[in-house]
């Protein structure tokens, strides 16, 4: 049961869930949730490969930095969302049209 394939499958499901959230949701916070799911999927892949294929800890380092970057991304992203809400009074992603034209 525990093998490379199952981990890859789980991470694929995570990724697809993040994909659906990112595409379907119109709430910017929800889109950020989707991004977190996708980042987790990739980090999981790295660790799984590190265990089953390369047998060194570089994958761990990589997923560690993915987590770090995810934290920075969430911090900045949510700050932007909050500022956006203060200006537009909404968090609907399609309202972010200031730069469109």
């Amino acid at each position, binding site marked *: 049961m525990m093998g490379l394939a199952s981990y890859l499958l789980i991470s694929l499901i995570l990724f697809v869930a993040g994909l659906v959230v990112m*595409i379907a949701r119109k709430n910017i916070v929800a889109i950020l949730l989707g991004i977190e799911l996708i980042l987790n999927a990739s980090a999981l892949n790295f660790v799984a490969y590190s265990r089953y294929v390369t047998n060194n800890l570089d994958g761990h380092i990589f997923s560690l930095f993915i987590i770090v970057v995810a934290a920075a991304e969430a911090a900045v992203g949510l700050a932007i969302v909050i500022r956006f809400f203060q200006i537009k009074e909404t968090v609907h992603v399609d309202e972010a049209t200031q730069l469109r034209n």
Partner: protein
Amino acid sequence: MFAQLLFAMSALLTVGGAIAVVVTKNIMHSCIFLLACLIGVAGLYATLGADFVAVTQIMVYVGGIVILMLFAVMLTGGKDFVSRAQNLLGLAPSMGNKWTFSIAILVSIVFLLTNISLIGNIVRSHAPKTFGNDYPSTVSQIGHLLVKDHVLAFELSSVLLLGALVGAAIIARPRKQ
């Protein structure tokens, strides 16, 4: 036996949480399901012998990112409580409709099929090796890697975080009215 059990529980938590994030209409509940999902991923890390990464996952995500997201929801969701009286589900329309969901599901099916075949290829071509059943401590190895091989990334990550802190603080700082 216990390993299998742990794996099954973690996988269940992960997949269930992920699916719940997708189907939930309430953003607050979505965040909580994300929390469950992330804890599940931490469990999966543990079954892979990545104890440090697992705990880091819990520390950063559960202790940090999810709380930050809950804060953000509170800071953006509850406004204008006369028109959305008693109901944060006033946000529900922005959680997607059948059109966006059908597009998303279409895209994800394409992606899913592609990747499943890819995973099949990978599993066939890289016969997964098992490197014994010993799970040595990863902490000191990770420490050595961070200090030796990846020292630049280690130092730069602090600069990245400083940049994120400064940038986000500037963006989110309360303005003088």
